[in-house]
């Protein structure tokens, strides 16, 4: 078993996290006589995790380069509030409500604002040399205060209708056909990647994986992808929602078996972010430099790497991810309250660390952080599903955090 696993060259850590996730799923399933494992629960849980998972992908790079960002919750807060104020206060008197492009304009402004905040914090950290812990702790206070300033202390709602697509739910999902299409695209991508990697190894006559391992990975990857699409599509639009649409539009078409809900947009966004961030972290110079800085800052500098600009870029990236995360959060709230994103920083850091990111720097994976967020939110959701209150959920999340890192520490000690 161990040698077979090695032949597939699958990261054992990642494998362990997926196994843990499956065990947690099945555990809650068993306790609830299977009720927990319904499509609607799985979808809701993933959508809840998406905001934090997206942020965790950026936090990995920040922690890998031996920094920390404590401001993400407040930055999500100020950007979410910006979206809400734009759509609730500014647009009605300027471009109008629910225009075709208003929500995109808001989103664009948010992305620029996120990049700008990241650039300012990153500049102070990288070029002026104030520790990131201090700068972003200040940022946490400053941006949370600014949320109150721009909102006038009041909750701002509602957003433009189209913005709500990013909330998920039946109306914020891809629907049946598009979900299958996305699934197929992913499967083709998996196969192409495997073929490409194998060809690259052949090009230089390097040893390659045994062919059975390649096929096994391909089949499992595609099967999991298509199974996920199947589950997402097995959730149908509820009757009440269908009736509402029929009342507005008598031609609203519902197929006999019900309308497939499909993959929620927040999950599509999370998948896109995960793929892009993985490419950045592992296939681009930028990612290589981030890891080199985390491994040995002096070596990176002597290697001719512009370490300051690299660190500043990680914070800009984090700001952009805050804007994406804030869009999902604000869409789910259909507006913004003053406490949007409060405490996110702790969940985001926990997700990254559960996912194997080391505080010593230089070690971490994007997919691990996303899985870390999933593990944490599955636990939280599952515990609330069986009727345990939020404080208990936090207690369990905290214990899991320590156990996950404990496992890691022991594991590394044994390897060494």
């Amino acid at each position, binding site marked *: 078993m161990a040698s077979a696993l090695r032949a597939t060259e699958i990261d054992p850590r990642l494998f362990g996290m997926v196994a843990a996730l499956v065990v947690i799923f099945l555990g809650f399933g068993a306790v609830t006589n299977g009720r927990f494992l319904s499509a609607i629960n799985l979808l809701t849980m993933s959508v809840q995790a998406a905001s934090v998972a997206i942020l965790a992908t950026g936090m990995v790079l920040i922690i890998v380069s031996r920094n920390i960002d404590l401001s993400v919750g407040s930055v999500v807060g100020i950007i979410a509030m910006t979206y809400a104020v734009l759509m609730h206060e500014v647009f009605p008197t300027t471009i109008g409500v629910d225009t075709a492009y208003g929500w995109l304009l808001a989103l664009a402004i948010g992305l620029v604002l996120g990049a700008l905040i990241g650039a300012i914090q990153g500049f102070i950290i990288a070029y002026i040399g104030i520790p990131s812990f201090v700068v972003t702790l200040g940022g946490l206070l400053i941006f949370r205060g600014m949320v109150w300033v721009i909102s006038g202390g009041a909750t701002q709602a509602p957003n433009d209708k189209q913005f709500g697509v990013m909330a998920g739910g039946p109306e914020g999902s891809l629907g049946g056909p598009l979900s299958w299409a996305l699934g197929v695209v992913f499967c083709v991508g998996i196969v192409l990647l495997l073929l490409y990697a194998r060809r*690259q*190894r052949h*090009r*230089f006559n*390097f040893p390659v994986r045994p062919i059975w391992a390649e096929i096994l990975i391909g089949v499992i990857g595609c099967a999991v992808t298509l199974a996920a699409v199947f589950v997402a599509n097995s959730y149908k639009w509820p009757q009440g929602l269908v009736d509402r649409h029929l009342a507005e539009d008598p031609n609203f078409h519902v197929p006999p078996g019900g309308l497939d809900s499909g993959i929620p947009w927040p999950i599509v966004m999370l998948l896109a972010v995960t793929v892009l961030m993985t*490419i950045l972290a*592992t*296939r*681009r*110079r930028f990612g*290589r*430099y981030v*890891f*080199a800085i*985390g*491994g*040995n800052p*002096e*070596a*990176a*500098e*002597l*290697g*001719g*790497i512009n370490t300051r600009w690299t660190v500043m870029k990680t914070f800009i990236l984090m700001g952009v991810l805050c804007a994406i995360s804030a869009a999902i959060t604000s869409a789910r709230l259909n507006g913004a309250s003053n406490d949007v994103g409060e405490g996110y920083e702790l969940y985001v850091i926990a997700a990254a660390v559960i996912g194997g990111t080391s505080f010593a720097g*230089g*070690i971490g994976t994007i997919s691990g952080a996303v899985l870390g967020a999933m593990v944490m939110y599955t636990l939280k959701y599952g515990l609330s599903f069986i009727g345990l209150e939020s404080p208990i959920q936090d207690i369990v999340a905290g214990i899991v955090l320590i156990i996950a890192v404990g496992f890691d520490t022991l594991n590394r000690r044994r390897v060494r």
Partner: protein
Amino acid sequence: MTTGQTPPLVELRDISVAFGGVHAVERATVTLKAGEVVGLVGGNGAGKSTLMRVLSGAHPSDSGDILIDGERVTIGNPRDAKALKIETIYQTLALADNIDAPANLFLGRELVSQSGMLDDSAMEDATRKVMGRLNPNFKRFKVPVRTLSGGQRQAVAIARAVHFNARILIMDEPTAALGPAETAQVRDLIRQLRNEGLGIFLVSHDIHDVFDLADRISVMYHGRIVDTVSKGDTSIDDVLAMIILGKPPAQASKEELEPLIG
């Protein structure tokens, strides 16, 4: 310098470096010709490494000139030095422990495809070739260099300097962390590279190492160059005397020399 003579490969002229009020290097001048090994010796804190860090771009000088092939150049950072084909093997090796040997070898100079993606296979291939020359038994190309032995790590650091066709090589204590067999290997390599026409600065505590390999020896003492001597014109005792006393033996008194030579 008379006309018609080719200028030296490297001339560091009147270089000074101060840390706060402390003069780490003071008006030091050294030259290096192609196909020559110049040993740089001196006690702890004599300024050898600091002087070399000026040439490798790791630390700018406060004053003085760097001439390559007789032309004045500016070296403000390690990238400038590498562009001038100056490669450095640092005493600390300067390896990122968490990434593998090919990634370290190409650190800062990664091979990328047309779309800007890292070409890890091509980098691994090049690493296999250069390591095949330095350490034929080396097979661990895909593991973090943290897990390699001291000799293997040293080989990676040397491979990095050799791979990019350096003209000028700076080796700061290249054998300090090595066992006897590996030290012999590095010595062979230094001779081989010199015969290929590289100019090599060899910084070392080990006077025997230097006497074995260097053509000329520059002695540093408290940031100054005491003297530069050809190996044929001097002895280990004379060089030791200069390292300890900070002046050429001819200027030293009998009383100063006697306890040293014994």
